Protein backbone atom coordinates (compact mmCIF):
# COMPACT_ATOMS: atom_id res chain seq x y z
CA UNK A 1 0.00 0.00 0.00
CA UNK A 2 1.49 3.31 -1.08
CA UNK A 3 1.50 6.26 1.31
CA UNK A 4 2.58 8.79 -1.32
CA UNK A 5 0.33 11.77 -1.92
CA UNK A 6 -1.34 12.04 -5.35
CA UNK A 7 1.09 14.85 -6.20
CA UNK A 8 4.15 12.79 -5.27
CA UNK A 9 2.79 9.81 -7.18
CA UNK A 10 2.13 11.93 -10.26
CA UNK A 11 5.58 13.54 -10.21
CA UNK A 12 7.29 10.23 -9.57
CA UNK A 13 5.58 8.57 -12.50
CA UNK A 14 6.14 11.59 -14.72
CA UNK A 15 9.86 11.50 -13.93
CA UNK A 16 9.96 7.84 -14.85
CA UNK A 17 8.38 8.40 -18.28
CA UNK A 18 10.48 11.50 -18.93
CA UNK A 19 13.65 9.48 -18.41
CA UNK A 20 13.11 7.77 -21.77
CA UNK A 21 13.30 10.96 -23.80
CA UNK A 22 14.87 13.76 -21.75
CA UNK A 23 18.24 14.37 -20.13
CA UNK A 24 18.51 14.80 -16.36
CA UNK A 25 18.64 18.59 -16.51
CA UNK A 26 15.52 18.77 -18.67
CA UNK A 27 13.76 16.27 -16.43
CA UNK A 28 14.51 18.41 -13.38
CA UNK A 29 13.22 21.47 -15.24
CA UNK A 30 9.97 19.78 -16.21
CA UNK A 31 9.44 18.34 -12.73
CA UNK A 32 10.03 21.88 -11.39
CA UNK A 33 7.33 23.20 -13.73
CA UNK A 34 4.78 20.61 -12.63
CA UNK A 35 5.67 21.09 -8.96
CA UNK A 36 4.93 24.78 -9.48
CA UNK A 37 1.68 23.84 -11.22
CA UNK A 38 0.52 21.72 -8.27
CA UNK A 39 1.46 24.37 -5.70
CA UNK A 40 -0.36 27.16 -7.51
CA UNK A 41 -3.45 25.06 -8.21
CA UNK A 42 -3.55 24.13 -4.53
CA UNK A 43 -3.31 27.81 -3.61
CA UNK A 44 -6.30 28.34 -5.91
CA UNK A 45 -8.20 25.90 -3.68
CA UNK A 46 -8.02 22.65 -5.65
CA UNK A 47 -7.27 19.32 -4.04
CA UNK A 48 -4.35 17.22 -5.27
CA UNK A 49 -6.83 14.62 -6.53
CA UNK A 50 -8.69 17.27 -8.55
CA UNK A 51 -5.44 18.62 -9.99
CA UNK A 52 -4.38 15.13 -11.06
CA UNK A 53 -7.81 14.50 -12.58
CA UNK A 54 -7.57 17.74 -14.61
CA UNK A 55 -4.12 16.84 -15.93
CA UNK A 56 -3.56 13.90 -18.24
CA UNK A 57 -1.89 10.79 -16.87
CA UNK A 58 1.89 11.13 -16.36
CA UNK A 59 2.53 8.88 -19.34
CA UNK A 60 0.35 11.04 -21.61
CA UNK A 61 1.85 14.27 -20.26
CA UNK A 62 5.34 12.92 -20.96
CA UNK A 63 4.18 11.88 -24.42
CA UNK A 64 2.88 15.44 -25.11
CA UNK A 65 6.12 16.95 -23.87
CA UNK A 66 8.09 14.54 -26.03
CA UNK A 67 6.06 15.42 -29.14
CA UNK A 68 6.28 19.15 -28.44
CA UNK A 69 10.05 18.84 -28.09
CA UNK A 70 10.19 16.83 -31.33
CA UNK A 71 11.83 13.80 -29.74
CA UNK A 72 11.51 10.11 -30.39
CA UNK A 73 10.14 7.99 -27.51
CA UNK A 74 13.31 6.07 -26.96
CA UNK A 75 16.35 8.33 -26.93
CA UNK A 76 19.13 5.74 -26.70
CA UNK A 77 21.81 8.37 -26.13
CA UNK A 78 20.02 9.79 -23.12
CA UNK A 79 18.64 6.61 -21.63
CA UNK A 80 21.72 4.51 -22.11
CA UNK A 81 24.08 7.22 -20.92
CA UNK A 82 22.23 7.33 -17.63
CA UNK A 83 22.01 3.56 -17.47
CA UNK A 84 25.66 3.16 -18.46
CA UNK A 85 26.95 5.10 -15.47
CA UNK A 86 24.90 3.03 -13.06
CA UNK A 87 25.68 -0.23 -14.83
CA UNK A 88 29.40 0.51 -14.62
CA UNK A 89 29.12 1.38 -10.95
CA UNK A 90 27.19 -1.82 -10.24
CA UNK A 91 29.64 -3.84 -12.27
CA UNK A 92 32.64 -2.74 -10.26
CA UNK A 93 30.86 -3.00 -6.92
CA UNK A 94 29.62 -6.47 -7.93
CA UNK A 95 33.06 -7.53 -9.10
CA UNK A 96 34.73 -6.43 -5.89
CA UNK A 97 32.18 -7.92 -3.56
CA UNK A 98 31.73 -11.03 -5.69
CA UNK A 99 35.46 -11.65 -5.45
CA UNK A 100 35.33 -11.14 -1.70
CA UNK A 101 32.41 -13.59 -1.49
CA UNK A 102 34.38 -16.27 -3.31
CA UNK A 103 37.39 -15.73 -1.11
CA UNK A 104 35.25 -16.16 1.96
CA UNK A 105 33.74 -19.35 0.52
CA UNK A 106 37.19 -20.74 -0.25
CA UNK A 107 38.60 -19.99 3.13
CA UNK A 108 35.76 -20.79 5.46
CA UNK A 109 33.88 -23.56 3.62
CA UNK A 110 30.34 -24.07 4.79
CA UNK A 111 30.62 -21.55 7.64
CA UNK A 112 30.54 -18.67 5.19
CA UNK A 113 26.80 -17.99 5.44
CA UNK A 114 26.97 -14.92 7.70
CA UNK A 115 29.96 -13.28 5.99
CA UNK A 116 28.13 -13.75 2.68
CA UNK A 117 24.96 -12.30 4.13
CA UNK A 118 26.88 -9.21 5.24
CA UNK A 119 28.40 -8.88 1.79
CA UNK A 120 25.00 -9.08 0.12
CA UNK A 121 23.70 -6.45 2.53
CA UNK A 122 26.70 -4.21 1.84
CA UNK A 123 26.15 -4.69 -1.87
CA UNK A 124 22.50 -3.70 -1.62
CA UNK A 125 23.40 -0.55 0.33
CA UNK A 126 26.12 0.48 -2.12
CA UNK A 127 23.99 -0.47 -5.09
CA UNK A 128 21.01 1.50 -3.80
CA UNK A 129 23.12 4.64 -3.89
CA UNK A 130 23.62 4.01 -7.59
CA UNK A 131 19.94 3.52 -8.33
CA UNK A 132 17.87 6.59 -7.49
CA UNK A 133 14.22 5.92 -6.75
CA UNK A 134 12.89 8.24 -9.42
CA UNK A 135 14.01 5.75 -12.06
CA UNK A 136 11.15 3.57 -10.98
CA UNK A 137 7.44 3.90 -11.73
CA UNK A 138 4.56 3.25 -9.44
CA UNK A 139 4.42 2.41 -5.79
CA UNK A 140 7.10 2.07 -3.18
CA UNK A 141 6.87 -1.71 -3.59
CA UNK A 142 7.75 -1.27 -7.24
CA UNK A 143 10.91 0.58 -6.26
CA UNK A 144 11.95 -2.25 -4.00
CA UNK A 145 11.33 -4.89 -6.64
CA UNK A 146 13.04 -2.89 -9.35
CA UNK A 147 16.12 -2.23 -7.24
CA UNK A 148 16.20 -5.80 -6.08
CA UNK A 149 16.09 -7.00 -9.65
CA UNK A 150 18.97 -4.83 -10.79
CA UNK A 151 21.03 -5.53 -7.72
CA UNK A 152 20.56 -9.27 -8.00
CA UNK A 153 21.59 -9.16 -11.64
CA UNK A 154 24.63 -7.02 -10.84
CA UNK A 155 25.76 -9.21 -7.96
CA UNK A 156 25.32 -12.38 -9.96
CA UNK A 157 27.27 -11.00 -12.90
CA UNK A 158 29.94 -9.63 -10.61
CA UNK A 159 30.41 -12.95 -8.85
CA UNK A 160 30.64 -14.89 -12.09
CA UNK A 161 33.10 -12.42 -13.53
CA UNK A 162 35.14 -12.45 -10.36
CA UNK A 163 35.53 -16.20 -10.81
CA UNK A 164 36.66 -15.76 -14.39
CA UNK A 165 38.85 -12.70 -13.96
CA UNK A 166 40.33 -13.56 -10.59
CA UNK A 167 41.15 -17.27 -11.03
CA UNK A 168 43.24 -17.37 -7.86
CA UNK A 169 40.03 -17.12 -5.90
CA UNK A 170 38.31 -20.07 -7.54
CA UNK A 171 38.58 -23.58 -6.26
CA UNK A 172 36.64 -26.71 -7.20
CA UNK A 173 35.28 -26.98 -3.68
CA UNK A 174 34.31 -23.37 -3.47
CA UNK A 175 30.95 -21.82 -3.41
CA UNK A 176 28.18 -24.18 -2.23
CA UNK A 177 26.77 -21.33 -0.22
CA UNK A 178 27.67 -18.91 -2.93
CA UNK A 179 25.71 -20.99 -5.43
CA UNK A 180 22.71 -21.17 -3.13
CA UNK A 181 22.75 -17.41 -2.58
CA UNK A 182 23.09 -16.74 -6.30
CA UNK A 183 20.35 -19.18 -7.25
CA UNK A 184 18.02 -17.63 -4.71
CA UNK A 185 18.81 -14.18 -6.05
CA UNK A 186 18.28 -15.34 -9.61
CA UNK A 187 14.94 -16.90 -8.77
CA UNK A 188 13.93 -13.56 -7.28
CA UNK A 189 15.27 -11.89 -10.39
CA UNK A 190 12.92 -13.80 -12.67
CA UNK A 191 9.93 -13.01 -10.41
CA UNK A 192 10.89 -9.34 -10.44
CA UNK A 193 11.20 -9.32 -14.21
CA UNK A 194 7.64 -10.55 -14.47
CA UNK A 195 6.56 -7.80 -12.10
CA UNK A 196 8.47 -5.10 -13.99
CA UNK A 197 7.14 -6.28 -17.32
CA UNK A 198 3.61 -6.00 -16.01
CA UNK A 199 4.37 -2.32 -15.30
CA UNK A 200 6.44 -1.62 -18.37
CA UNK A 201 4.96 -3.32 -21.41
CA UNK A 202 6.53 -0.87 -23.88
CA UNK A 203 10.14 -1.43 -22.96
CA UNK A 204 9.48 -4.96 -21.84
CA UNK A 205 10.17 -7.17 -24.83
CA UNK A 206 13.76 -6.03 -25.22
CA UNK A 207 14.53 -6.19 -21.51
CA UNK A 208 12.87 -9.56 -21.21
CA UNK A 209 14.88 -11.20 -23.95
CA UNK A 210 18.18 -9.72 -22.79
CA UNK A 211 17.68 -10.39 -19.11
CA UNK A 212 16.17 -13.82 -19.42
CA UNK A 213 19.06 -14.91 -21.64
CA UNK A 214 21.59 -13.42 -19.27
CA UNK A 215 19.79 -14.78 -16.23
CA UNK A 216 19.50 -18.29 -17.66
CA UNK A 217 23.17 -18.32 -18.61
CA UNK A 218 24.23 -17.16 -15.16
CA UNK A 219 21.96 -19.76 -13.60
CA UNK A 220 23.63 -22.37 -15.78
CA UNK A 221 27.00 -21.24 -14.53
CA UNK A 222 26.03 -21.50 -10.90
CA UNK A 223 24.83 -25.02 -11.65
CA UNK A 224 28.17 -25.63 -13.24
CA UNK A 225 29.65 -25.00 -9.82
CA UNK A 226 27.44 -27.76 -8.47
CA UNK A 227 28.46 -30.02 -11.35
CA UNK A 228 32.07 -29.40 -10.45
CA UNK A 229 31.17 -30.87 -7.12
CA UNK A 230 29.13 -33.77 -8.48
CA UNK A 231 31.12 -34.27 -11.71
CA UNK A 232 28.52 -34.48 -14.53
CA UNK A 233 27.70 -32.74 -17.84
CA UNK A 234 30.29 -30.16 -17.05
CA UNK A 235 31.37 -29.10 -20.52
CA UNK A 236 27.97 -28.11 -21.83
CA UNK A 237 27.21 -26.00 -18.79
CA UNK A 238 30.67 -24.49 -18.87
CA UNK A 239 30.10 -23.38 -22.43
CA UNK A 240 26.90 -21.65 -21.40
CA UNK A 241 28.69 -20.06 -18.48
CA UNK A 242 31.41 -18.57 -20.63
CA UNK A 243 28.76 -17.37 -23.05
CA UNK A 244 27.09 -15.60 -20.16
CA UNK A 245 30.29 -13.94 -19.02
CA UNK A 246 30.97 -12.81 -22.59
CA UNK A 247 27.47 -11.33 -22.72
CA UNK A 248 28.09 -9.23 -19.64
CA UNK A 249 31.54 -8.23 -20.81
CA UNK A 250 30.10 -7.29 -24.18
CA UNK A 251 27.58 -5.10 -22.36
CA UNK A 252 30.45 -3.30 -20.66
CA UNK A 253 31.99 -2.04 -23.91
CA UNK A 254 28.97 0.00 -25.09
CA UNK A 255 28.76 1.40 -21.56
CA UNK A 256 32.30 2.74 -21.86
CA UNK A 257 31.67 4.11 -25.37
CA UNK A 258 28.49 5.85 -24.22
CA UNK A 259 30.24 7.33 -21.23
CA UNK A 260 33.07 8.61 -23.40
CA UNK A 261 30.65 10.11 -25.93
CA UNK A 262 28.57 11.57 -23.10
CA UNK A 263 31.59 13.41 -21.70
CA UNK A 264 32.45 14.81 -25.10
CA UNK A 265 28.83 15.90 -25.66
Amino acid sequence: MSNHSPKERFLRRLRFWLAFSFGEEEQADIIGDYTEWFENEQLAGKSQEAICAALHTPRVVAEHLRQEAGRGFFQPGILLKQAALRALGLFFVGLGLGGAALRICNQSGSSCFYPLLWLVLLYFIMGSALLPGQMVPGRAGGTLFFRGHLLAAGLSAGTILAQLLLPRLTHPQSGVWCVLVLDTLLLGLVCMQVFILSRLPAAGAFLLSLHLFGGMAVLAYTHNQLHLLYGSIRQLVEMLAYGSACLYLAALLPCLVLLFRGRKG
Partner: protein
Amino acid sequence: MDGQLKRGILNICILQLLRQQDRYGYDLIKQIQAFFPDTEESTLYTILRRMNTDGLTERYDSPVSHGPQRKYYRLTGQGRERLQEYLADWEQIEAVFSQIGL
Protein backbone atom coordinates in the same frame (compact mmCIF):
# COMPACT_ATOMS: atom_id res chain seq x y z
CA MET B 1 -6.39 25.27 -35.37
CA ASP B 2 -3.33 23.95 -37.16
CA GLY B 3 -0.60 23.09 -34.66
CA GLN B 4 2.17 25.00 -36.41
CA LEU B 5 0.06 28.13 -36.85
CA LYS B 6 -1.17 27.97 -33.29
CA ARG B 7 2.34 27.58 -31.93
CA GLY B 8 3.38 30.72 -33.82
CA ILE B 9 0.49 32.67 -32.35
CA LEU B 10 1.25 31.35 -28.87
CA ASN B 11 4.85 32.51 -29.25
CA ILE B 12 3.68 36.03 -30.09
CA CYS B 13 1.18 36.08 -27.18
CA ILE B 14 3.77 34.90 -24.65
CA LEU B 15 6.39 37.39 -25.80
CA GLN B 16 3.84 40.22 -25.72
CA LEU B 17 2.63 39.28 -22.21
CA LEU B 18 6.24 39.23 -21.03
CA ARG B 19 6.90 42.59 -22.64
CA GLN B 20 4.20 44.04 -20.38
CA GLN B 21 5.68 42.58 -17.20
CA ASP B 22 7.69 39.66 -15.80
CA ARG B 23 5.48 36.69 -15.07
CA TYR B 24 5.82 33.21 -13.55
CA GLY B 25 5.02 30.12 -15.61
CA TYR B 26 1.69 29.21 -14.03
CA ASP B 27 0.37 32.78 -14.30
CA LEU B 28 1.45 33.02 -17.93
CA ILE B 29 -0.17 29.71 -18.81
CA LYS B 30 -3.44 30.63 -17.12
CA GLN B 31 -3.54 33.89 -19.07
CA ILE B 32 -2.96 32.11 -22.36
CA GLN B 33 -5.51 29.41 -21.51
CA ALA B 34 -8.10 32.16 -20.93
CA PHE B 35 -7.77 32.98 -24.66
CA PHE B 36 -7.08 29.45 -25.92
CA PRO B 37 -8.82 27.09 -23.47
CA ASP B 38 -7.85 23.90 -25.30
CA THR B 39 -4.12 24.62 -24.97
CA GLU B 40 -2.30 22.07 -22.85
CA GLU B 41 0.01 23.24 -20.09
CA SER B 42 2.61 20.83 -21.52
CA THR B 43 2.60 22.78 -24.82
CA LEU B 44 3.09 26.10 -23.05
CA TYR B 45 5.77 24.87 -20.66
CA THR B 46 7.67 23.48 -23.66
CA ILE B 47 7.43 26.84 -25.47
CA LEU B 48 8.64 28.64 -22.34
CA ARG B 49 11.58 26.27 -21.96
CA ARG B 50 12.52 26.66 -25.61
CA MET B 51 12.35 30.46 -25.40
CA ASN B 52 14.65 30.30 -22.41
CA THR B 53 17.10 28.02 -24.22
CA ASP B 54 17.05 30.30 -27.27
CA GLY B 55 17.84 33.32 -25.11
CA LEU B 56 14.51 35.08 -25.74
CA THR B 57 13.74 35.01 -22.01
CA GLU B 58 15.65 34.54 -18.80
CA ARG B 59 14.44 33.01 -15.58
CA TYR B 60 14.91 34.08 -12.01
CA ASP B 61 13.54 32.92 -8.69
CA SER B 62 11.15 35.28 -6.98
CA PRO B 63 11.99 36.44 -3.47
CA VAL B 64 8.87 35.09 -1.71
CA SER B 65 8.25 35.50 1.99
CA HIS B 66 5.44 32.92 2.02
CA GLY B 67 3.84 30.59 -0.52
CA PRO B 68 5.58 28.62 -3.23
CA GLN B 69 8.90 29.59 -4.76
CA ARG B 70 8.17 30.88 -8.26
CA LYS B 71 10.30 30.98 -11.36
CA TYR B 72 9.73 34.26 -13.15
CA TYR B 73 10.36 34.84 -16.85
CA ARG B 74 11.80 38.12 -18.09
CA LEU B 75 12.01 39.18 -21.74
CA THR B 76 15.57 39.73 -23.00
CA GLY B 77 16.73 42.17 -25.69
CA GLN B 78 16.81 39.24 -28.10
CA GLY B 79 13.22 38.42 -27.12
CA ARG B 80 12.10 41.97 -27.87
CA GLU B 81 13.77 41.82 -31.27
CA ARG B 82 12.07 38.50 -32.00
CA LEU B 83 8.69 39.93 -31.03
CA GLN B 84 9.24 42.84 -33.44
CA GLU B 85 10.10 40.37 -36.19
CA TYR B 86 6.94 38.35 -35.46
CA LEU B 87 4.80 41.49 -35.52
CA ALA B 88 6.37 42.60 -38.81
CA ASP B 89 5.59 39.15 -40.25
CA TRP B 90 2.07 39.45 -38.95
CA GLU B 91 1.56 42.83 -40.62
CA GLN B 92 2.75 41.31 -43.87
CA ILE B 93 0.25 38.46 -43.48
CA GLU B 94 -2.55 40.92 -42.77
CA ALA B 95 -1.61 42.91 -45.91
CA VAL B 96 -1.75 39.72 -47.98
CA PHE B 97 -5.11 38.77 -46.43
CA SER B 98 -6.61 42.16 -47.24
CA GLN B 99 -5.26 42.01 -50.81
CA ILE B 100 -6.94 38.66 -51.44
CA GLY B 101 -10.17 39.87 -49.85
CA LEU B 102 -10.11 38.12 -46.48
